[in-house]
């Protein structure tokens, strides 16, 4: 039965991909993505179209969000023209690293949370947002603190990353995960599960769409690990990483980063403090 073997070419292609790229052996600066980008005249950004409020489609179908604005600012810095960005839509979150490794994009900007496990396969810039994860419940819910969540069904996005965060504060949690955060929130809104859990900026964005219906659980006694959000780049390209870090620094120093935080999150609370503020 020949359809059993349709996966074989993919496996072969994957193995070939892993063999490596001949251009990589050249001098570091000449082979850097920075030079490629400058020569090309546009920057190619991998992003998702479903990651509110980072990168998503608005009612008109246009790609908007914090990360989209950030990408335009990077283009302004590179080419003095904010329009010189090309977006590649990543169909799922696993695509974020694969798209870098297969040279399809120059950088990934799409609410990319930094975890040690991920840092082993991809390089991250300094974070442009320091977020964390929160539980959101319906306003009338009896749940007030993390201890009330024991034995309750928690709705969230699929992923061992999110599950590990939940396990930090709720022992043996019951978790129902959806590939899309929007589906997870819809399921919770429809009455499945007892609490919704996700990254703070996204959760608050969803909750704000339904004023008065949802509230966050603030349990200051038991903090959940912070979630730095950064730009992802291919490993081993220190020149490009260095450029992007200084690009972020200048956005922060000029107040542009603060502007983006206010525009998309309605708060500056999640802005990182890695620059000494002028007195």
């Amino acid at each position: 039965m020949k359809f059993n073997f349709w996966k074989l070419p993919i496996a072969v292609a994957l193995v070939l991909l892993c063999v490596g790229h001949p251009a990589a052996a050249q001098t570091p600066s000449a082979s850097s993505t920075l030079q490629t980008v400058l020569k090309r005249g546009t920057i190619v950004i991998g992003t998702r179209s479903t990651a509110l409020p980072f990168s998503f489609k608005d009612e008109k179908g246009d790609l908007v969000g914090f990360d989209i604005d950030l990408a335009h600012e990077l283009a302004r810095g590179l080419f003095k023209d904010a329009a010189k960005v090309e977006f590649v839509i990543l169909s799922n979150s696993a695509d974020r690293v694969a798209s870098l490794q297969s040279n399809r994009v120059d950088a990934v900007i799409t609410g990319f949370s930094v975890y040690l496990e991920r840092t082993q396969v991809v390089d991250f810039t300094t974070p442009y947002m320091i977020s964390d994860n929160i539980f959101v419940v319906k306003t009338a819910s009896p749940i007030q603190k993390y201890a009330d969540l024991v034995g309750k069904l928690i709705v969230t996005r699929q992923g061992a990353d999110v599950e590990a965060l939940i396990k930090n504060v709720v022992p043996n949690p019951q978790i129902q995960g959806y590939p899309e955060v929007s589906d997870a929130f819809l399921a919770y809104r429809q009455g499945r599960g007892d609490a919704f859990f996700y990254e703070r900026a996204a959760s608050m964005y969803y909750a704000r769409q339904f004023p008065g219906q949802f509230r966050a659980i603030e349990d200051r006694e038991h903090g959940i690990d912070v979630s730095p959000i950064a730009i992802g780049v291919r490993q081993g390209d220190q020149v490009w990483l260095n450029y992007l870090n200084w690009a972020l620094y200048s956005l922060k120093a000029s107040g542009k980063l603060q502007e983006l935080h206010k525009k998309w999150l309605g708060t500056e609370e999640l802005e990182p403090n890695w620059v000494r503020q002028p007195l």
Partner: protein
Amino acid sequence: MGSGYTLIWLPVIEAAPELSYGVLKTLEIAFLSSLSATILGLSGAIISRYGGTGGRLAGISYLELMRNSPSLVKMYFLYFGLATFGIYLSPFAAGTIALSLHNAAYMMEIFRAAIASVPDGQYQAAASLGLKSRVAFGKIIWPQALRRALPALGNNWAEIVKDTSITSALSVQEFYYAFTSTVALNMRTYEFFIVAGAVYLVLTGSVGGFVRLLERRLSAAERSSAKR
């Protein structure tokens, strides 16, 4: 790919328990959906073949209704759509029902074509032997039709095995869910994709082996009955 990517297998090994649990869940969904889709499909084929104009129209309507939307859309309808009317199907139930209904349409066409391919002479011969039509179908028509249907049935069963992955969209924790969840944290895409490819290859390969075994048994049975 940058300066070369090193395959690291430890994350896969660490995820082995979740992945194995996922494989079991995948098998469970595949088995239940294949079974109910086959039974539904066969019933549909018999109704549309022998049920007169009404049966034929019902068969065509069901086929067009099911064939013209993706199984994912059916899952969303059963899971999120019905929930707005207060009907809460579990993720597992919604996924399995959607796969069954969807594939029953294909199975129905497979059985219908297989039954139609048995020559009219066989019906006449059965009638001339004085067999009642139900007995004629069970003893004469059905064994021949089944043998002709088997290769296409095998395709569809293998398709169902792969389509179980779609149920992860409803949070069913089958193999694809386990695999994408672990990748979401460690981003070891290549390692996990290779493993996933191998797992689906083994699963669908087993379906293929099972079908070949059935085919051999059926043709052996036919030869021995021909000798008699």
